[in-house]
């Protein structure tokens, strides 16, 4: 079956996509489409996002997400010239069951050869070609219990290249399939209105990889508390989870991981809202006798909705992330507002301390019904040593 899918030509794949889209248009779904063309130095990049959603009277919802990114050169932000990911997803709620079934097809083309498995095969590099992902997820509620289960299978077709030490060249090998299968089960028991405890197990297998190097089994026990001291205004959620991991690729220190988190959300007034989220991960030393710090993650933000438009489309927001262990400290801010009539302007900035930054400015025109078109200018540095990128772009968003 997978072999058949992988062998499906790009033309047939596009035709199926087109037929599905046309069939759907006849059913009057809600559609959102965004397209953007940017020019960076002498490169062009084209980004397209489409979401089509159809709700049925049976209670089900069918969604298509399509994401196409094409550039005429490989950039550090995109390891391939063409990336096309299309997702079909079905969501259904029966009386006590909520289920989601989906399929995703991802096409990589004109890609950089990447060292997918540097530890395992140091002299091999790969081109990613086509990836099929299928999943099923279900939650069953029964009195104070909730049972959740999922399965996700990912099949990636790759073209391996092996380094010839005599000629110092890369030699193309026969295409291969890499499979990853993920499954999991979790049982949650609601002790009272606020507190729930849970236990779960996950297994991931990588058939075909020698010695099960990337196989991973995890068991977890957790407790979660959700407290709303001021309903609809203040919400505090805390959780604590212990996870045991068993897998050859997991270092001895990361076998036992303890994750503690606290999240606070507050609607201070109709215009002002804010949140703080803190996650702490600790693991144990190989003997299991000492707690070691894995990472901290503190995130906070506030948003002020400007009383300019009744739809609340004008706002300013700002926030920060503090995670020194993983070099992901950042500050970010964003704002957009109506300038006059249907013209609006927006600015955003993201500054990752000592790593990179990006500033963007937008000027747009809104049509009736939330559709819009805009021009933008962005200036960024992805990482130190990589030339700074300054680009102009134009885009439009269409709602139906």
């Amino acid at each position, binding site marked *: 079956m997978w072999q058949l899918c992988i062998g499906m030509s790009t033309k047939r794949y596009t035709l199926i996509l087109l037929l599905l889209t046309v069939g759907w248009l006849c059913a009057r779904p809600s559609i959102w489409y965004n397209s953007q063309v940017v020019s960076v130095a002498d490169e062009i990049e084209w980004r397209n996002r489409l979401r089509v959603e159809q709700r049925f009277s049976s209670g089900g919802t069918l969604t298509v*997400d399509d*994401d196409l990114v094409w550039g005429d050169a490989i950039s*550090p*932000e*995109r*390891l*391939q010239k063409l990336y096309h990911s299309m*997702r079909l997803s079905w969501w259904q709620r029966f009386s006590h069951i909520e289920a*989601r079934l989906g399929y995703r097809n*991802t096409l990589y083309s004109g890609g950089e050869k*990447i060292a*997918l*498995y540097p*530890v395992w095969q140091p002299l091999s590099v790969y081109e*990613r070609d086509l990836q099929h*992902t299928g*999943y099923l997820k279900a939650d069953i509620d029964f009195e104070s219990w909730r049972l959740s289960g*999922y399965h*996700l299978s990912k099949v*990636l077709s790759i073209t391996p290249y092996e380094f010839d030490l005599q000629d110092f060249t890369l030699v193309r090998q026969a295409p291969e399939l890499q499979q990853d299968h993920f499954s999991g089960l979790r049982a949650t028991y609601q002790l009272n209105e*606020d*507190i729930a405890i849970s236990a779960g197990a996950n297994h*991931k297998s*990588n058939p075909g990889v020698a010695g099960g190097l*990337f*196989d*991973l089994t995890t068991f977890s026990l957790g*407790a979660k*508390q959700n407290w709303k*001291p001021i309903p609809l205004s203040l919400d*505090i959620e*805390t*959780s*604590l989870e212990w996870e045991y991991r068993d*897998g*050859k*690729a*997991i*270092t001895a*220190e*990361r076998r036992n991981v*303890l994750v*503690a988190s*606290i*999240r606070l959300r507050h609607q201070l007034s109709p215009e002002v809202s804010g949140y703080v989220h803190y*996650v*702490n*991960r600790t693991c144990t030393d190989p003997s299991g006798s*000492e707690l*070691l*710090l*894995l*990472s901290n993650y503190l*995130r906070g933000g506030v948003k002020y909705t400007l009383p300019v438009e009744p739809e609340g489309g004008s706002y300013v927001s700002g926030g920060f992330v503090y995670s020194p262990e*993983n*070099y*992901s400290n*950042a500050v*970010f801010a964003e704002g957009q507002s109506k300038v006059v009539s249907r013209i609006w302007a927006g600015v955003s900035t993201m500054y990752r301390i000592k790593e990179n930054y990006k500033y963007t400015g937008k000027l747009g025109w809104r049509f009736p019904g939330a559709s819009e078109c805009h021009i933008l200018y962005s200036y960024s540095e992805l*990482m130190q040593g990589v030339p700074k990128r300054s680009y102009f772009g134009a885009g439009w968003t269409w709602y139906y």
Partner: protein
Amino acid sequence: MRFRCLLPILMILILMLVAFACRSSSGGEYNVDRSACNGCGECVRVCPHDAIYMDADNKAMIDQSKCQQCGNCVLVCPQSAIH
């Protein structure tokens, strides 16, 4: 005021304080803040080890068995959701 609700919060805060006092582990790991992830897929496009996939809720997941901790995904995430 329901004091029983304060108990788990206090317990977690104490745990976090204890964790701050710990020495750091020799290696790290990256994870995704699911509430901040918008499903854009930028991280999937740059991961050189095919260690990120989108789950059934269209949120990025890091496969800890494949991740080599290069940090590329952190640099491109527009939401700063990877830590």
